[in-house]
């Protein structure tokens, strides 16, 4: 794929990144190895197959994963522009689309670093899983259940916060472009000043009865979110609502989720439903995926 000079530069560059953030040490840790064995057992039992994804991707594939191209770390050869992947789901989608024969559903998992740029290079080692080609609500329940089990390796006090990205997109689309952008900003930063201007500050609440009642007054279809929320509760999963959560990754279009614990000051995992196979590859297949943020978790535990 690369000529040797470019390859050397890339390998050197890559080695520098992982050495800088110290993840090589974390990866060598006993806890990391134990978790990988733990996760492999659970995932293979559930019928998930491991795939190895390249650390580089095409610029055009990765630009779909962000609204801010400046986040992408690009490497130019004389003919092409490559990107250190920021997201692995599009790589999975390319792989699925490239298969000559597809026997649905497909369950796959993968692991590796993702990279982004914000005044400095940031990398995160993730374990991801995707369930592609399922019926009804199966995907969201299965992915949430597995991630919940996997996170129990690190913490027993995990909460999952869910939302329906379609609801927020519906609300956003009722405004003109300028107001929409301002509201998007307010949602991403949970900014009360701006949300109050739109009389939408209640989106930040978590009381399900209040939220579903308010959503009904907006004529928003929240039945699916309500159904998934109730069913997850019935499955004894610690589930809460966060209907203000707008994911920074643009491809989600259904139920999204994030896992938190009082013992970790960041999301331990997140994901959701998407239709990128339909958008890009004209394959109308439902998919749901999620990723566990291993380097953050292991760093906290170290």
């Amino acid at each position, binding site marked *: 794929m690369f000529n040797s000079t470019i390859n050397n530069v890339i390998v050197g560059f890559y080695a520098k990144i992982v050495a800088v953030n110290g993840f090589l040490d974390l990866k060598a840790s006993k806890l990391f190895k134990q978790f990988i064995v733990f996760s492999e057992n659970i995932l293979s039992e559930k019928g998930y197959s491991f795939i190895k994804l390249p650390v580089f991707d095409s610029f055009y594939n990765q630009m779909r994963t962000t609204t801010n191209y400046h986040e992408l770390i690009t490497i130019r050869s004389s003919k092409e522009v490559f990107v250190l992947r920021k997201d692995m789901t599009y790589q999975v989608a390319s792989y699925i689309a490239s298969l000559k024969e597809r026997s649905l559903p497909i369950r796959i998992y993968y692991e590796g670093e993702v990279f982004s740029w914000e005044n400095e290079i940031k990398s995160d080692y993730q374990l991801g899983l995707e369930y592609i080609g399922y019926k009804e609500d199966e995907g969201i329940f299965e992915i949430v259940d597995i991630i919940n089990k996997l996170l129990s390796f690190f913490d027993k006090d995990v909460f999952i*916060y869910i939302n329906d990205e379609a609801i927020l997109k519906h609300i956003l689309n009722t405004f003109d472009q300028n107001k929409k952008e301002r509201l998007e900003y307010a949602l991403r930063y*949970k*900014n009360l*000043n701006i949300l109050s201007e739109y009389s939408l*500050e209640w989106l*930040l609440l978590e009381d399900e009865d209040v939220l579903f009642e308010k959503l009904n007054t907006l004529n928003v279809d929240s039945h699916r979110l309500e159904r998934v929320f109730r069913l997850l509760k019935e499955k004894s999963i610690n589930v809460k609502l966060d209907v203000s959560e707008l994911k920074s990754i643009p491809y989600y279009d259904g139920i999204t989720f994030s896992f938190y614990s009082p013992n970790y*000051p*960041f999301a331990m995992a997140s994901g959701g439903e998407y239709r990128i196979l339909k958008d890009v590859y004209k394959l109308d297949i439902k998919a749901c995926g999620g990723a566990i943020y291993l380097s953050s978790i292991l760093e906290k535990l170290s």
Partner: protein
Amino acid sequence: MVRIAIPKGRLLEEVSELFLKKNIIPSKLEESRKLIVEKDGFKFLIVKPSDVATYVEQGGADLGVVGLDVLKEDPKDVYELLDLKNIGKCKMVVAGKPEKLEDYKILHFTKVATKYVNIAKRFFEEKDVSINIIKLNGSVEIAPIIGLSDYIVDITQTGNTLKENGLIVMEEIFESYAKIICNKASFKIKKRDIFKILAKFTDM
């Protein structure tokens, strides 16, 4: 217990007065050698202004009060819950000697001294001006006077320091004010306690 990071220096006085006025604390916070103060069910961490957002992002504090100038210079992955537009009011400006005003209007390349390297870079990049940045940590007004730089990028509250050093504002970059920021996990896990504080500022 909700942990709140408050910046030392000029913002401490203003924030302390605001929190007192909103009945969040019973008495004012004073700057002293004690850097962790427990008051009325809150734990206040008195830290350097540029470190507030780091404490919040990393989970050392649940909430923090930080200037927009600091956040723009070094963005962090935090929620920006409330804009306190009357606290920490100042302007981020490009300033220089009056005789440099005409040159400023037709700039292609220039030397800028500043503490705010990223803000300056982004601002001039958008104007298609190439710049050589000289990073200074304080008293940047000296740089154009002694010829170290053509201009400075800095915050100004009243404009008095600029005036006293014979400098004028060439252009305003943005207005800065304080924001209440929040750790993303704390916002979910400690939502009730955090909302009790936010309710003092809004009708929630």
